[in-house]
């Protein structure tokens, strides 16, 4: 075999294979269409026995298989309007009037109008047309018939035109064009329609398949009978690339997915979860955390205080200790040196951070619980307006490590570990300030995609003025309370904070899973 022949043969085999594989994939409706592809669209519909929409769907499938290209021409068609359909059967008003005049020549206008049973408009139109064609005359309010017999029998151009509709507007004979001009402004006799004409342009592949009578024994569905009937069955091949309608599954809220993940990090690191309430007294939210009573954060435009509710404090000893820490200091501190008022501490509020949970935990802690590590993830509140970067609710994660040997390097170690697991490969630490920690630190994480460092949280070691009144002695307490929303927004590439709290069902359905 010469080289060329070999190549050709190879090509042929390839071709046959691709034709066969296409034939195997043809769905029942495609099969019905394929054998008529050489015909016009109209004929395909006729021969295939399918609805027009079925044929279009089949053609689209075939187009996806590169068997053909669908071309559509838009044509302006003239067709009968609602009155046109009626007149075609009953005759145009002018015809009806002529027939009347044949038997009642020379009658008064009013009577003619009545006898003709035409509407006012139709009668006027009929008169106008017949006068214009000089088939009638009008004298002394009476109508006279001027037409000759043969003129009466002959169909007018308009009538002939109605008989042959529909026609394509661009392809009218001159007489038809004249008739159209006469009729187009009369009420609903003719109308224009845009018509899409579908043409099938076969590809090289299509040319080989078109017209083939495809008789196939490929099976459609797996039925119990087929299963029972043994092996060796061949099924029609699907086009696996065809798109299918979307479905939605049940899903945990993406914020809760990320919270569950964060909780897992903490438990993996040996932390016990702290629980507590969202509403608390100012005492636990501020005073126990050495935040002076005139600190700006305690003002009504920063914090949600609760209306008409009175708080109370049951542990008098701790209240005394905290008062002393503020007024004159404890464990070598000078304190804030002012007169501390219990009334201010009683004001109930919505927690502004999760740190009161840590304060409660310290107040409850027994010697046997030390060393101890505790965490929380929870909703916090501040009196804020709402926009893309602000909200009155936010999520925070909290942690404390209570241990004689704990130090600042360990604090940085825990933070680095946590944020690495949260997806920040690089973190940096800067000095910061909180009334209740010293030293304090601000954590920055590197956003790989945006290539920027972003602030992701604050932390520190609790001041003796916080620890001693609550615990009764000084033990280093590493503490952190980074906001959480920024991390979630980073992961989901959310630009508007409101999306975290908005419950847009469409957005929730489409959210990717939190996987770290």
């Amino acid at each position, binding site marked *: 075999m010469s080289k060329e022949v070999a190549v050709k043969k190879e090509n042929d085999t390839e071709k046959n294979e691709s034709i066969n594989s296409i034939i195997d994939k043809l769905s029942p409706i495609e099969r019905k269409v394929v054998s008529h592809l050489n015909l016009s669209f109209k004929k395909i519909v006729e021969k295939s026995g399918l609805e027009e929409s079925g044929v279009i769907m089949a053609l689209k499938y075939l187009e996806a298989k590169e068997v053909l290209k669908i071309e559509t021409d838009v044509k302006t068609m003239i067709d009968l309007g609602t009155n046109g359909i009626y007149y075609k059967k009953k005759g145009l008003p002018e015809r009806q009037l002529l027939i009347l005049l044949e038997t009642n020549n020379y009658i008064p206008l009013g009577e003619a109008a009545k006898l003709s049973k035409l509407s006012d408009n139709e009668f006027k139109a009929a008169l106008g047309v017949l006068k214009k064609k000089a088939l009638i005359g009008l004298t002394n309010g009476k109508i006279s018939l001027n037409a000759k017999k043969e003129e009466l029998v002959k169909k007018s151009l308009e009538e002939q035109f109605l008989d042959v509709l529909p026609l394509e507007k661009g392809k009218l004979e001159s007489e038809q064009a004249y008739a159209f001009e006469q009729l187009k402004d009369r009420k609903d006799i003719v109308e224009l329609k845009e018509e899409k004409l579908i043409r099938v342009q076969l590809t090289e592949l299509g040319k080989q398949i078109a017209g083939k009578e495809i008789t196939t024994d490929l099976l459609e569905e797996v039925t119990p009978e087929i299963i029972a009937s043994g092996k060796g069955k061949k099924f029609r091949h699907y086009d696996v690339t065809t798109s299918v309608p979307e479905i*939605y*599954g*049940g*899903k*945990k809220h993406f*914020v*809760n997915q990320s919270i569950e993940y964060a909780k897992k990090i903490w438990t993996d690191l*040996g932390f*016990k*979860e702290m*629980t507590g*309430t969202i*509403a*608390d007294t100012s005492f636990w939210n501020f005073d126990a955390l050495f935040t002076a009573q005139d600190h700006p954060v305690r003002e*009504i435009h920063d914090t*949600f205080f*609760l209306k008409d*509710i009175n*708080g109370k*404090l*049951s542990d008098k000893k701790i209240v005394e200790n905290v008062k002393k820490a503020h007024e004159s*200091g404890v464990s070598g501190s*000078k304190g804030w*040196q*002012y007169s501390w008022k219990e009334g201010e501490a009683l004001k*109930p*509020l*919505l927690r502004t951070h999760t740190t009161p949970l840590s304060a409660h935990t310290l107040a409850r802690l027994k010697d046997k619980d030390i*060393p*101890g*590590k505790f965490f929380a993830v929870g*909703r916090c*509140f501040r009196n*804020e307006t709402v926009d893309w970067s602000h909200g*009155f*609710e936010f999520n925070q994660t909290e942690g404390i490590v209570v241990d004689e*040997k704990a*130090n*600042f*390097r360990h604090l*940085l170690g*825990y*933070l*680095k*570990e946590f944020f690495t697991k949260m997806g920040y490969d690089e973190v940096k*630490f*800067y*000095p*910061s*300030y909180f009334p209740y920690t*010293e*030293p304090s630190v601000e954590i920055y994480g590197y956003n790989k995609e945006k290539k920027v460092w972003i602030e992701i949280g604050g932390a520190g*070691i609790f*001041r*003796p003025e916080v620890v001693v009144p609550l615990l009764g002695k000084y033990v280093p307490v590493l503490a952190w309370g980074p906001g959480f929303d920024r991390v979630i927004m980073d992961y989901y590439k959310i630009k508007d904070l409101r999306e*975290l709290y*908005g*419950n847009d*069902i*469409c957005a929730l359905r489409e959210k990717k899973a939190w996987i770290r």
Partner: protein
Amino acid sequence: MASIKFQRKEFEKHIKLNKEMEEKISMFGTHLESISNDEIELEILPNRPDLFSFQGYVRAFRAFLGKETGLKKYKINSPEKNFKVKIDSSVKNIRPYTTCAIVKNLNFNDEKIKEIIDIQEKLHSTLGRNRKKLAIGVYPLEKISLPIKYEARKPQEIRFIPLEMTEEMNGLQILQRHPTGREYAKLLEGYDKFPVFVDAKGEILSMPPIINSHETGKITLQTKEVFIECSGFDFNILKKTLNIIVIALADMGGKVYAMDLDYGKKEQTPDLSPETMKINIENVNKLLGLSLKEKDLEKLLPRMGYDYVNGKVKVPAWRTDILHEVDIIEDIAIAYGYDKIVPEIQNVSTVGNESIESKMRSKLSEILVGLGLLELSSYHLIKGSEAKTSKVREENRIEVMDSKTEYKILRNNLLVPALRAFSENKDNEYPQNVFEIGTVFSKGNSESGVLERTNLLIAYSPSNFTRLKQTLDYLFKTLDIVYSLKESKKEELIEGRNGAIILGGKEIGYVGEVSPETLNAWNIKMPISVLEISLEDIFNKFR
């Protein structure tokens, strides 16, 4: 956090900006917020008001870089004749304290005047708690006659032309008509006398903490000598505030003079003598996890503006934030460099544990997601109008004060947020089958006066009672808990198509079809079936 703007050109005379320097500025605890051709903007932490002035910042940061380290010494000249302020006992219950100084040899230009006003404003808004705790006045000495008196007078007896005005006003008129007066009027609310500074000729210099006199309380380019006073409630803070200002003026080339204050008991301000604080190197190393030596402290502490000898630290008299040894330890860490402190994983073994609430929440959502439900997460606050629509009784509403949005009432069920969600998702594809687990609030006997419970809500739309009951059966079967249903009535639900969920004889929730009236009130077009359960008794079974 306060953001401070400095002239870039002036700043760069002392500190040349580049990437490395910018990072150092951040490592000093003062992020560089923005840089333009003319200005730079720094974020200063609220515990360092001594860095608000350009001079103060440059002084501290250059020391941090190792230039001119240690406690900076300033000369305070003894009071000259009549450098006296007499504090009358009438101010005792109004605004009891003042600290004062005189600074000569000044050479103002527009920039410097602006700087002084800026420092004043920053100190007012931070340390001064918006002038409530302290207010500062600076006066051109050439316009006033010493000695000075600080006293309280009836508002009608206070008459002077306030700053930026042309006519004389009395104390009350200032509070009612002058813009600054109106802004700060509440600080003098309830007093029948207002404090004033009066000079030897009887001219009123100012009415703190509101406003200075236009005649005697305005610095101009001609001003070479100034009288400065700080007034307020905490003598200690007032002393430090005065110190921050006078050393900034001293750094501008001013010559600082003390004044004698006569409170009955004699005081003299400004007093720049440093406080001595002991520091234990073991505590330093224990808290920071470092192994610093004496000589390291000798190097590091001066870089934060301290003098250090032999376990004793001399703390600058303008630092307001040093209450305890730990405050100095933080400064040692900053001088050492946060970037040089190596994070370490602690070698301590503890056992981790999730709370039962968390475990149950994630188990429940797992079960419900298995049923194809979508989890919602809503605000804990609802709108006032929603509380009305859903007929939450007035006495059961817990409202927050002065909310900046229409969300102002704590939810006492999850139905309101769910109906809001349905009403906002009208245009999204149905069916919409959802659940939420969250905290709900009611008044009660706790320290905060609020009781909190965790509820579960499940809602299907469109749907009917049967579907919800199927879900309920499935849920309780999966939890291996037996419950029962009892006919019941609930306002939002269709009569005869809702029931109370009973667990151990106790009603823990409801299930039913939402009534067309309720749906209509929420502008919802599709039927909804809903159940809500208080989870406490279910949690208790697993505790």
